[in-house]
């Protein structure tokens, strides 16, 4: 075991820095107790936010069924799953459900589509609302037919009686019968009666996407629409000193150059004309380059030197055997980017009075609030409508592009303005997933059981999302700039930098601390999984280090410390389907295993995989990958498998290749050559996902369940293959080569 010595200098660092606050934040168990103590049961899911049934389900007199969600389709397949859920309880074909997604004029405000919460929040609301609507319709039919409600049932869009008399839903909805408040308890169909939930219904959006349909906001073409581009400063805080636009105004197609402080944009008749003018403006603009970024080579030292708030996330103590052996380790994760394949895009249209914005941002209501503030308009004069974009994986440039489009549209009333960012702008200006560092320390007793566990994680905020106008780049660059709001640490039980910082294992003594660093040298925000990616990488790497020290098989060692039944089943399923074994492999090959329950309250996911490490280059090649996942009652098993496969492959890219590069004035990762990601040549041999269904259990979010376990499984396999532990992401060929001392 060659773990580096635990650095007690953390306290020194903290002592030398300003400690802003100290708090014991609500632990998951406390939060649950509070829920249980509530006198009236809460409304299910997002019904809490919007309790009227017709905010979720509407049925017209002609029988057309519309379901409404405040969540967005972001490539995770939520549209299809929500149609299945609504159709199930309404007893109709899923394709008969017309689904409207986030739109400030039409849907409930469900905040952001983030945190793997859409099934838990929105599918739960829609399912319960649909069940209550069905029962209301049965009640109306019972009165009309003079038959007891329990003699009636819903079938194919109608209420049907024992004598096969039927009344179509459309004939039962007169007089706002659905405009009623939801009840806390619904008559949900029993798990064994489900027909649509649990089916791998093909996604409804894929046929259009593979044949050239209008699928994205990028594809939106409105009558009279024009194209715009923005010119961003040369570095984060650079100010625009001057720009000579005289020649550029005369370039073909150029309609308007918009300057407000350091915000600079150009509107043209055609897209490539806008790009040509943008290039000319980029050359003409003179900036004062003010930004001073820290030294990339010492970024972790710099982050350690910044002031931090100390939060205690877990602190529990019980009698235990004495520790006979203590291990300590430090783990690092660099800045990593969302790297959407399609740069951010938005369309906005201002009629002189009200503004409409089409955007692929994850929260239409927060976006509206921010844009209204930026433009000094009342909220009701701004409508934000979600349209899909390229996968975002969190807070990328989407909100900023929407703000750009809003500003430019207001400069040219009456003409819809489409803005798309260039690749270089997306790479340099998106808010990255923060660099993180954590320290783990644990002791084993004589029998090889963990008796105490300490963990400290240090991180920036993981959300700089709107609603504040100051969260938009453009608003910060205006002559009258808006300032970003104060960074926030996030709240347990979901957590942010501290997400998944508490191991799910049953350990007698656990202390977990979160050092929240408010100062942000690089622009950061929510990247898929937030801190869970790093914390699970660290915790599950450390579990392997402890297993090795205890002379135990890594899977057996995890099971030894795991009491949750569903977690055990997922671990056992992944191990069994993979054919897990501790037997040594050929030289340069290794196996790795890891497990986590996302946020300790979402989906359970275990990953087993094998790697080959090329001795000469240090290059890691992925072989077979097997995962098991329990997402609660599985609505669309193929959709769950798709998310887990994608999560594993995306995490493999983060884990093996990715790190944002910068010098002391600017971001150097400007494109796919300066920020390489996984390509087909390096994808795993295979990725098999086993969905462990949990009939009758609540829906659990899946979209972010795999990234942490995949990262740790890769790291553990690399150790298994090379005998060397690497605790610093990414596990690049250069780093692996240096570690194995070739």
């Amino acid at each position: 075991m060659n773990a580096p010595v635990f650095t007690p200098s953390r306290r020194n660092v903290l002592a030398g820095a300003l400690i802003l606050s100290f708090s014991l934040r609500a632990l998951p168990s406390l939060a649950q107790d509070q829920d249980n103590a509530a006198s009236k049961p809460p409304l299910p899911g997002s019904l809490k936010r919007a309790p009227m049934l017709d905010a979720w389900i509407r049925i017209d007199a002609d029988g057309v069924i519309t379901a409404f969600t405040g969540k967005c389709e972001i490539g995770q397949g939520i549209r299809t799953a929500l149609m299945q859920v609504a159709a199930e309880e309404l007893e109709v074909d899923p394709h008969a459900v017309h689904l409207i997604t986030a739109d400030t004029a039409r849907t409930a405000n469900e905040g952001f589509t983030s945190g793997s919460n859409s099934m838990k929040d929105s599918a739960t609301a829609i399912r319960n609302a649909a069940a209550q609507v069905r029962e209301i319709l049965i009640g109306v039919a019972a009165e009309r037919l003079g038959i007891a409600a329990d003699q009636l049932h819903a079938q194919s869009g109608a209420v049907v009686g024992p004598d096969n008399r039927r009344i179509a839903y459309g004939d039962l909805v007169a007089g706002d019968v659905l405009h009623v408040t939801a009840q806390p308890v619904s008559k949900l169909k029993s798990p064994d009666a489900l027909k649509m939930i649990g089916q791998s219904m093909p996604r409804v959006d894929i046929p259009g996407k593979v044949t050239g349909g209008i699928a994205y906001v990028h594809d939106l073409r409105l009558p009279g629409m024009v194209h715009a581009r923005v010119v961003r400063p040369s570095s984060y805080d650079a100010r625009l000193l001057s720009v000579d636009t005289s020649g550029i105004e005369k370039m073909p197609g150029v309609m308007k150059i918009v300057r407000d402080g350091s915000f600079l944009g150009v509107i043209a008749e055609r897209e490539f004309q806008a790009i040509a003018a943008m290039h000319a403006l980029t050359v003409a603009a003179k900036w004062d380059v003010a930004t001073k970024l820290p030294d990339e080579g010492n970024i972790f030292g710099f982050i350690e030197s910044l002031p931090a708030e100390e939060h205690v996330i877990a602190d529990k103590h019980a009698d235990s055997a004495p520790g006979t052996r203590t291990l300590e380790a430090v783990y690092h994760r660099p800045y990593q980017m969302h790297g959407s394949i399609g740069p951010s895009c938005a369309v906005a249209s201002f009629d002189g009075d009200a503004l409409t914005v089409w955007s692929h941002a994850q929260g239409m209501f927060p976006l509206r609030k921010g844009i209204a503030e930026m433009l000094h308009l009342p909220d009701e004069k701004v409508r934000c409508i979600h349209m899909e974009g390229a996968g975002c994986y969190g807070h990328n440039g989407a909100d900023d592009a929407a703000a750009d489009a809003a500003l430019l549209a207001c400069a040219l009333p009456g003409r819809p303005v489409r803005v798309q960012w260039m690749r270089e702008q997306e790479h340099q200006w998106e808010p990255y997933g923060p660099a993180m560092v954590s320290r783990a320390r644990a002791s084993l007793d004589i029998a090889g059981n963990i008796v105490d566990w300490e963990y400290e994680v240090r991180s920036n905020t993981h959300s700089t999302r709107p609603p504040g106008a100051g969260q938009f780049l453009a608003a910060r660059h205006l002559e009258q700039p808006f300032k970003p709001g104060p960074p926030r640490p996030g709240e347990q039980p979901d957590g942010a930098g501290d997400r998944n910082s508490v191991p799910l294992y049953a350990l007698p003594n656990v202390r977990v601390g979160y050092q929240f660093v408010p100062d942000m040298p690089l622009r950061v925000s929510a990247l898929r999984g937030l801190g869970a990616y790093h914390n699970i990488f660290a915790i599950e790497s450390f579990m392997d280090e402890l297993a090795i020290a205890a002379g135990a098989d890594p899977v057996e060692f995890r099971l030894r410390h795991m009491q949750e039944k569903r977690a055990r089943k997922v671990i056992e399923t992944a191990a069994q389907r993979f054919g897990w074994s501790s037997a040594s492999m050929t030289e340069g090959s290794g196996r790795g295993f890891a497990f986590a329950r996302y946020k300790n309250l979402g989906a359970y996911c275990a990953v087993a995989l094998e790697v080959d490490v090329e001795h000469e280059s240090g290059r890691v090649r992925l072989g077979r990958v097997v995962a098991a996942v329990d997402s609660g009652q599985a609505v669309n098993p193929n959709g769950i498998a798709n998310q887990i496969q994608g999560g594993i492959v995306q995490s493999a890219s983060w884990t093996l290749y990715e790190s944002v590069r910068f010098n002391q004035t600017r971001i150097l990762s400007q494109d796919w050559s300066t920020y390489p990601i996984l390509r087909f040549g390096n994808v795993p041999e295979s990725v098999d996902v086993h969905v462990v269904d949990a009939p009758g259990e609540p829906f659990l979010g899946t979209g972010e369940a795999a990234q942490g376990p995949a990262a740790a499984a890769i790291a553990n396999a690399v150790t298994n293959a090379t005998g060397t532990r690497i605790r610093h992401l990414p596990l690049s060929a250069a780093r692996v080569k240096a570690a194995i001392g070739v």
Partner: protein
Amino acid sequence: MITLNVNGRSRDVDDAPNTPLLYVLRDTLELNGAKFGCGLGQCGACTVVVDGKPVFSCLTPIAILQGRKITTLEGLGTEDAPSPLQRAFIEEQAAQCGYCIPGMIMRAHALLTGNAAPTDAEIREHMNANLCRCGTHMRILQAIKRAARGMQAADARAPAQEVRP
């Protein structure tokens, strides 16, 4: 005016000759398939097929495309009548956000046109030019293999049909 042959149709466009094909396809001809990804030939989201070869439409000015045969995603099939390759992507559910998929399909189309039975290694090497960020790679590979199998089966049946009276 430049005349382009897009999906078998002759199209006159008045865009400047240095305009990359991508913008002409998307904005002038209103075809959604080819996507802007990088403008640098690094990601393949804009891939179309020109004279049987995969081409980055974001880098290819229309001035050099007169008289050449341009095929876009729309030229393969429609939602009601998808091509075998498009159908394979639907059957494998080979998309998450789907933004990269049109470029993937066009690059794979060029491969299968020249090589009806590519090996796994050949597919991976050929597809290396195109990036996916959702991690849909395994399903994309499966879809290409499924389409190849389907095309081989169709080829195998074809001679038998020809000898029928």
